[in-house]
């Protein structure tokens, strides 16, 4: 039994419990370099944006809330600077989500998982929490030492300090996040004094606790086990994608710098393990592209530091594409086999995602710019489809919902195209407001109205079956057509 070799051992039992990625605690070593600087800058910018924008005031008239960015659930409106979005603008959110998705795919085809490595909230908050951890418990070696020492008085004080700051950041995150929905001033003043609503209290608590747990404890396990994105991101890569790469052709076989100086035939990697120690997810990039790599480039920073010290060229670990690495290693461009012929790999993903992103952003800009403050939704009454009146004339009923978000019109009137000799009557909540060819509705201060519009066509003009009609909503002030909607007018089929 004891003769089973190491290799066989792994084959027999697969992983041992502590060999599963993420099970062993990752003690991250601090590192300096280009990517670290970019990461810190992004962290600073996003934190400032997230925590700062919640406090930004914006002067709005009347009772409207004065917070620049507020998704008010009580009012059902999303305020963003000078814009106000209503629930019916929800489709814009679809466009934003589409844009984000294609943006993610697009950047992924160019530079791999930079979203994960530089701007994902999980990465950022973990990064910040680790910075705080280092302030209280020192860098990697000190942290390991303290873990071994156990809870001495000094370590306990350091731990308490660390957790206090973590909890404070967690709470601030919860308060700020919910502040975007319930008002930042409200959450920050009412939650600590237990005056806020139960919903607000619970939600702030949940988000504070999640921040504390996910950034303080779960950390890389979120990326390794919880997040779906790493699982299919490799399908988004192509040979031209810049990914964090260890140039094995240059680094292998690994060996001490002294050996190489003595003339041994070995590569540039001195096996110092620094690239593993600085990795936020604890992976060894020298094993190649893997699920655990979030593409943050900290290992490249670490390796460049060592290479500079050894006066060897930097870039043993850097952002490089598979094609480049192949070319360096084999001195020939990589080819793929398509239909029996060898070809250069295409850039179809790059152009495809790029085009989709441009398309969606164009659609977004177009719809936002052309968004009128005036909305109309027309639902024909279907039960019954039409009403026959005493004199044989046919009436259709339309439930019309109007909203005037921009207070654009004082009065509006309907005009209908596609029928002959029709009469339009508006019955609003039991009160017939107007009657005649083009009845006018006083809109004034009303933001939204629900109307019952009756269109009656005389017996001699009634359509057989279905007739397409166009509803136009005309501004009573200047006669401008504000919006048109197509619908149908139903008559009896003979």
């Amino acid at each position, binding site marked *: 039994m004891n003769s089973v070799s190491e290799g066989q*051992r792994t084959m*027999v*039992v697969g992983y*041992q419990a502590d060999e599963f990625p993420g099970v062993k605690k990752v003690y991250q070593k601090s590192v300096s370099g280009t990517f670290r600087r970019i990461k810190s800058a992004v962290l600073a910018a996003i934190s400032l944006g997230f925590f700062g924008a919640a406090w930004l005031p914006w002067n709005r008239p009347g009772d409207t809330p004065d917070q620049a960015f507020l998704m008010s659930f009580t009012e059902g409106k999303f305020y963003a600077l000078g814009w106000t979005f209503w629930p019916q603008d929800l489709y814009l959110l679809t466009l934003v989500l589409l844009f984000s998705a294609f943006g993610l795919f697009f950047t992924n085809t160019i530079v791999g998982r930079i979203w994960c490595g530089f701007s994902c909230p999980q990465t950022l908050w973990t990064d910040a929490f680790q910075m705080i951890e280092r302030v209280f418990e020192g860098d990697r070696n000190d942290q390991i030492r303290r873990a071994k020492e156990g809870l001495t008085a000094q370590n306990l004080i350091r731990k308490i300090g660390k957790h206090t700051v973590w909890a404070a950041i967690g709470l601030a995150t919860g308060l700020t996040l919910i502040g975007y929905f319930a008002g930042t001033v409200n959450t920050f003043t009412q939650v600590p004094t237990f005056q806020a609503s139960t919903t607000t209290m619970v939600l702030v608590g949940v988000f504070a606790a999640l921040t504390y747990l996910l950034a303080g404890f779960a950390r890389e396990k979120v990326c390794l086990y919880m997040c779906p994105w790493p699982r299919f991101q490799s399908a988004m890569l192509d040979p031209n994608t810049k990914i964090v790469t260890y140039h094995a052709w240059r680094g292998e076989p690994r060996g001490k710098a002294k050996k190489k100086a003595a003339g041994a035939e070995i590569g540039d990697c001195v096996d110092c393990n620094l690239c593993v120690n600085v990795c936020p997810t604890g992976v060894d990039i020298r094993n190649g592209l893997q699920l655990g790599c979030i593409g943050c480039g900290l290992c490249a920073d670490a390796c460049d530091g060592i290479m500079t010290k050894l006066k060897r060229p930097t870039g043993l670990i850097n952002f490089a594409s598979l094609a480049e690495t192949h070319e360096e290693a084999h001195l020939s461009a990589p080819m793929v086999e398509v239909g029996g012929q060898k070809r250069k790999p295409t850039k179809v993903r790059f152009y495809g995602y790029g085009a989709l992103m441009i398309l969606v952003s164009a659609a977004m800009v177009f719809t936002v710019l052309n968004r009128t403050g005036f909305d109309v939704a027309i639902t024909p009454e279907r039960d019954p489809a039409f009403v026959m009146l*005493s004199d044989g004339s046919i009436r259709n*009923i339309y439930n019309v919902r109007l909203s005037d978000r921009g207070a654009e019109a004082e009065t509006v009137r309907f005009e209908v195209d596609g029928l002959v000799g029709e009469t339009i009557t508006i019955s609003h*909540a039991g009160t017939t407001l107007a009657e005649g060819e083009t009845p006018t509705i006083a809109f004034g201060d009303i933001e939204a109205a629900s109307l019952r519009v009756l269109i009656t066509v005389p017996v001699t003009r009634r359509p057989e079956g279905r007739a397409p009609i166009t509803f136009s909503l005309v501004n009573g002030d200047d006669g401008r057509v504000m919006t048109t909607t197509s619908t149908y007018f139903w008559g009896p089929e003979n």
Partner: protein
Amino acid sequence: MGKIERDPITGQYTTGHQWNGIRELRTPVPIWWMLVWIASIAFALVYVYLLPSIPLGDRTTAGATGYTARLNLEAELDAVRTARAEASAQLAELELSEIVADEELATLAFNGGRSAFGVNCMQCHGAGGGGQIGQFPSLIDDDWLWGGSLEDIWYSINHGIRNETLDARFALMPAYGDFYEQAEIEDVADYVLALNPSSPEHATRDQLPGAEMFDLECSACHGVNGEGGRDFGAPNLSDAVWLYGGEREEIVAQIINPRMGVMPAFGERLDEATIKMLTVYVHALGGGEDVASGETAALQ
């Protein structure tokens, strides 16, 4: 108990037991799992103490908090009733015309009426109030059997039609199949069809064989020109709207053995405010008339 030892292949401890020489690896439940399990037990105990939980046939153990979903619902309904009390009292007190004149009250009544309609009226008159030809009258056209003013509609809803209550609207049409021959009834049906001004025989209808019988039997309720009589719920026979169908054989069938609709007196089921809300709603559906029944002739 055997010896606890390390398994050489996996490096894990064994349980110490041996079964026919086979030893089992010790893979205890993870500590966090145990903690969650213990926490769940603690939670369950607290839950059982605080809230009703153990079923005892017709009831459950009462929790220390006294909470039950039933009481909670009752409290919520009470809150709704209290919140509506003022508006309900106002609706019950005011005249229908006053309700309609007040924009805010009219909106309230319309919306309240819509939901009450969905519960009480929709089953027969349809979700949109369109009725069903051959069964239940449409409430959204301009043809009313018993009148389409606010007051008329209120009376119809409150007292109903041809039910057992004293104040119900009531009128019967005799089954003429018992007194007349089939051919005579068909003649009258032809005359009835000619009552519509758009009929080609309209101008010369007096020469039709059914004219005499219509004058004798029908005009008392349905009017000399078939314009209907709302005091008897007698439908207008000269218009385009036919509750039980406007084909010749349908009219014949209706004369031989008439069908007449029945409606419950909702005053016995609903409170005054709800009936008024329903009235406002039905009146606003599209067929509401401005003037009460006796004076409606001017409107036609």
